[in-house]
């Protein structure tokens, strides 16, 4: 019986080639997109789950409110970890990380490495990072020891078994290699190529309870421990931080809290960090759970659009299948058997489509990786969930999309269909209209979404940032030159094509950051405090980066007093509540026990500039005139960039043997928005896909509609109807559905995109024309699709169509 069904199904598919192509292609496209997005989503959800103890690992976060400044930290105090381990029995182990970057020497070459972490020796007990060589228990126990990854070992030594070798780091410190570990999984929320023993970092023994620097992870004996510990945090802080507060801030912890300020500790599960944590001091750039939801919805949308195609086309084709249904019923087939037949047919079609989709997804994976910035791959692990998932989805999609056609077709009465009474079935389907409307509802939604994402990105890229990021070359490793950095700066300034240069590691794109506490008066009063970025810059900083001084003046080397002067950004002035800030004095706390207050005179106010991503509001910045030769930023103005680069590089080589590492500031800026750009591209790609699939379906439906109305068209033409009238007649019904879809989708699209934009501190208003444009696009695409069939039908010779009846 089943064989007979499949035989019929196969031959039917071969016979109606265009129907089959549209149906299978549409489904395959849909399933391909679905699979790729599922890959993406599964990857995002799998972060940190490679750790065997993942469910028992938590990170300690710190919420700080000081006066009006509120900050959430992914880091906490140095002594906390040890205290937790020794005082709280529910804690099994703790590990601290401190992020750093370091130079390592390989022969005469020096490389700057960013993925370097100081780590407590317990790291290998808490996290699942197996060592290939070396002993995990003792690897990081002693100062100046390092465990590196296989890749790093190969980079520096050309082989992997390098235990016992040493690596020469900054300031000629020699690190003994005590272990080599596998490269960290891509699905880890932090990346490290080098784990340096925490004991190599002197500050790690600090007893400071008012300073947060360490990413601290706690392993509990069992999950319930986290609740127990969290309940005791406030007590713990009172006990330890309270004491030091008394000495530094000259106030009791209770008074501190009464003033509206607070310290709070809380725990976040390890597996939540990647998608749910975006705090100050994260170990790496995390993802956003919103995008996971976003993409999941798009994936389901696309699959639904493809399934609806299937349902629409199958029921539209019903007229052609009705005779078969009649004959089968006459020959004794029960309805149940017919339902089963049609369901097995749809499962077969879905199966074929899925096979094509699997192949397509495999082929497209590298392209998708480029698009999404991921490195997804099919592994044995993937197959474990993929194979059952695919089988289940074939059944589910096959049954869901086959169910309506099956019940619809099998309900035909043989007496009717054998007499050919059923041709009216096409127009009367309200359900089909609803489904087409829904498909375009989704399409309009996605078009609007794409437009808004791109508008916002464009806005971000064209916004006046308060500085000029174009034509700025950054030499990231200027510190290699030591004292010679200044010499390079002066020589470059004299070079034709160079406008100006500034020597500092503090830049408005991702770079060094430093914070401090300032007070309005020389008293540690939290209400009068400011918690700004403090940047060391030189006198050329403002002019090189194209910032604007809106009050007072810039630093000047000729004024010896300027080293105790500061320039504030507008936000800092606002936070301090200063009316005429110029020449007023503010005080920087030295911190620690018995702090001293150093006075600074405000020399100028710089117009606010964005230095984080536009997702965040501008926070207070205070600039000081002090030497920092971290990197050298050069404003250039030349038509011949390669020649200028060569000249600069020659100058560099005459001063240093280190590699010349440079970047352009606008490119660095774009990096801040890589996620959004990727989201934009993914959105665009899948929108095009969804519309293509919807149009494929519409194309098929239009063909059937034209076929069903052949006689009507013939009669109308004989009676004198023009081609254009007939095209309009045939297209009208479909366009009406698209218009309904636009009306329904617009409010939803407005709401959803409005939500998304809330993530940006600086964002566009969605103007009316965005909706108009997406609506028109949908109508335009639908019209073209439908009219292709309508024109064909309208141009046909009426004699032919009438004779065929």
């Amino acid at each position, binding site marked *: 019986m089943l064989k007979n069904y499949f*035989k019929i199904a196969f031959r039917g598919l071969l016979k109606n080639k265009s129907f089959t192509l549209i149906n299978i292609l549409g489904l395959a496209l849909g399933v391909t997109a679905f699979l790729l997005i599922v890959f993406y989503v599964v990857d995002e959800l799998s972060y940190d789950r490679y750790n065997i103890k993942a469910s028992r690992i938590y990170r300690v976060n710190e919420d700080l409110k000081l006066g009006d400044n509120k900050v959430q930290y992914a880091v906490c105090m140095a002594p906390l970890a040890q205290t937790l381990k020794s005082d709280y029995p529910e804690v099994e182990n703790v590990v601290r990380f401190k992020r750093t970057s370091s130079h390592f020497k390989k022969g005469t070459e020096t490389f700057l490495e960013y993925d370097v972490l100081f780590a407590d020796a317990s790291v290998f007990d808490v996290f699942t990072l197996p060592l290939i060589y070396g002993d995990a228990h003792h690897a990081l126990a002693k100062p100046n020891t390092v465990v590196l990854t296989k890749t790093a070992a190969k980079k520096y030594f050309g082989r992997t078994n390098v235990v016992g070798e040493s690596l020469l780091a900054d300031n000629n410190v020699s690190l003994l290699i005590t272990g080599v570990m596998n490269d960290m999984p891509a699905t880890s929320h932090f990346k490290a190529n080098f784990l340096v023993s925490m004991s190599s970092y002197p500050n790690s023994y600090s007893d400071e309870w008012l300073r947060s620097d360490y990413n601290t992870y706690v392993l509990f004996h069992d999950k319930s421990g986290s609740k127990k510990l969290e309940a005791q945090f406030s007590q713990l802080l009172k006990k330890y931080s309270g004491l030091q507060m008394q000495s530094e801030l000259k106030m009791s912890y209770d008074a501190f809290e009464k003033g509206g300020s607070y310290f709070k500790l809380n725990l976040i599960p390890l597996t939540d960090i990647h998608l749910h944590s975006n705090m100050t001091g994260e170990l790496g750039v995390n993802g956003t759970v919103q995008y996971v939801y976003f993409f999941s919805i798009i994936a389901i949308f696309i699959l639904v659009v493809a399934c609806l195609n299937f349902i629409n086309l199958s029921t539209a084709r019903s007229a052609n299948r009705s*005779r078969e249904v009649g004959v089968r*019923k006459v*020959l*004794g087939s029960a*309805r149940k058997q017919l339902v089963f037949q049609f369901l097995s047919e749809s499962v077969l079609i879905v199966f074929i489509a899925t096979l094509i989709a699997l192949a397509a997804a495999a082929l497209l994976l590298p392209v998708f990786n480029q698009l999404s910035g991921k490195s997804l791959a099919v592994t044995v692990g993937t197959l474990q969930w993929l194979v059952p998932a695919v089988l289940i989805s074939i059944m589910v999609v096959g049954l869901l999309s086959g169910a309506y056609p099956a019940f619809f077709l099998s309900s035909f009465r043989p*007496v009717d269909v*054998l007499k050919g009474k059923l041709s009216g079935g096409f127009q009367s389907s309200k359900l089909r209209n609803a489904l087409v409307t829904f498909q375009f509802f989704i399409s309009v939604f996605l078009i609007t979404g794409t437009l808004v994402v791109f508008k916002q990105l464009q806005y971000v890229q064209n916004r006046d940032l308060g500085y000029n990021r174009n034509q700025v070359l950054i030499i990231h490793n200027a510190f290699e030159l030591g004292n010679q950095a200044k010499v390079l700066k002066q020589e470059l300034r004299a070079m034709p094509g160079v406008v100006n240069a500034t020597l500092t590691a503090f830049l408005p794109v991702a770079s060094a950051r430093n914070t401090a506490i300032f007070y309005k008066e020389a008293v540690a009063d939290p209400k009068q405090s400011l918690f700004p970025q403090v940047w060391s810059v030189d006198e050329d900083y403002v002019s090189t980066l194209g910032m604007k001084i809106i009050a007072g003046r810039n630093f000047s080397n000729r004024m010896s007093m300027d080293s105790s002067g500061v320039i504030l950004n507008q936000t800092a002035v606002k936070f301090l509540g200063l009316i005429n800030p110029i020449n007023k004095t503010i005080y920087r706390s030295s911190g620690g026990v018995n702090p001293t207050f150093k006075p600074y005179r405000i020399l100028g106010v710089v117009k606010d500039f964005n230095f984080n991503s536009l997702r965040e509001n501008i926070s207070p910045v205070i600039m000081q005139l002090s030497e920092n030769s971290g990197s050298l930023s050069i404003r250039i103005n030349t038509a011949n960039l390669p020649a200028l680069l060569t000249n600069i590089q020659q100058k560099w080589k005459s001063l240093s043997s280190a590699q010349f590492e440079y970047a352009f500031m606008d490119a660095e800026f774009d990096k801040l928005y890589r996620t959004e750009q990727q989201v934009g591209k993914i959105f665009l790609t899948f929108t095009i896909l969804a519309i293509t699939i919807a149009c494929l379906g519409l194309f098929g439906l239009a063909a059937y509609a034209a076929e069903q109305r052949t006689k009507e068209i013939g009669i109308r033409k004989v009676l004198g109807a023009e081609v254009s009238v007939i095209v309009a007649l045939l297209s009208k019904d479909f366009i009406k559905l698209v218009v309904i879809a636009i009306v329904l989708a617009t409010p939803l699209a407005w709401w959803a995109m409005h939500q998304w934009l809330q993530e940006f501190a600086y964002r566009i208003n969605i103007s009316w024309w965005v909706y108009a444009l997406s609506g028109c696009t949908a109508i335009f695409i639908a019209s073209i699709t439908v009219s292709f069939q309508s024109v064909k039908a309208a141009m046909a010779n009426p004699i032919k169509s009438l004779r065929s009846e």
Partner: protein
Amino acid sequence: MIQITNLEKFYRTEEVETVALNKLNLEIKTGEFVAIMGPSGCGKSTLLNILGLLDDPDAGSYLFNGTEVAHFNERKRADLRKHNIGFVFQSFNLIDELTVFENVELPLIYTGVSAVERKTRVEEVLTKMQIMHRRNHYPQQLSGGQQQRVAIARAVVNKPKLILADEPTGNLDSSNGNEVMELLTDLNEQGTTIIMVTHSEHDARYSHRIVRLLDGQTVMENIMM
């Protein structure tokens, strides 16, 4: 075999009610060959559909081999149909996607006959209908006469007690038509009851008895033998 008493069937549209069968009485004995004739719209096809359990009457009784079947549900009707009744249509109604062999095999699949036996029986009946050499062809590749022979083969492959034929020669030329009528006569002589709706007096002459309908009622019966 068939006993119909006061059978009624109406067709209703929003405004008009048409009487298709009006308190019709009819008895058909096992082994008979009955032709049903009458002008268009007299209720011939409605009667045939009800006899074949493709349609149900609005009132009256229909005894099939002594069982009241007038109000059987769809499952029971399908069951009775597949074991007892074979159909032959004017337009053949073969399934285009299946070969000659597969078309004929279909009723056997629905009655759950094993694959081996199906092969024997299909080949047997195809040989009998002299269409064996076309067994792997598709319906579109055959002439009208050949298609109708396949349709008859399909109708008889299950060895039904009753064959219902709805203008079996309507789409055929006279020589092919005669061949089909000969086939039906042969089947009847082997014991199958045949009820045939026809417009053709010529075809009707092959039957034992002609039932003439007008406006849903029997107006005359001619005994041919």
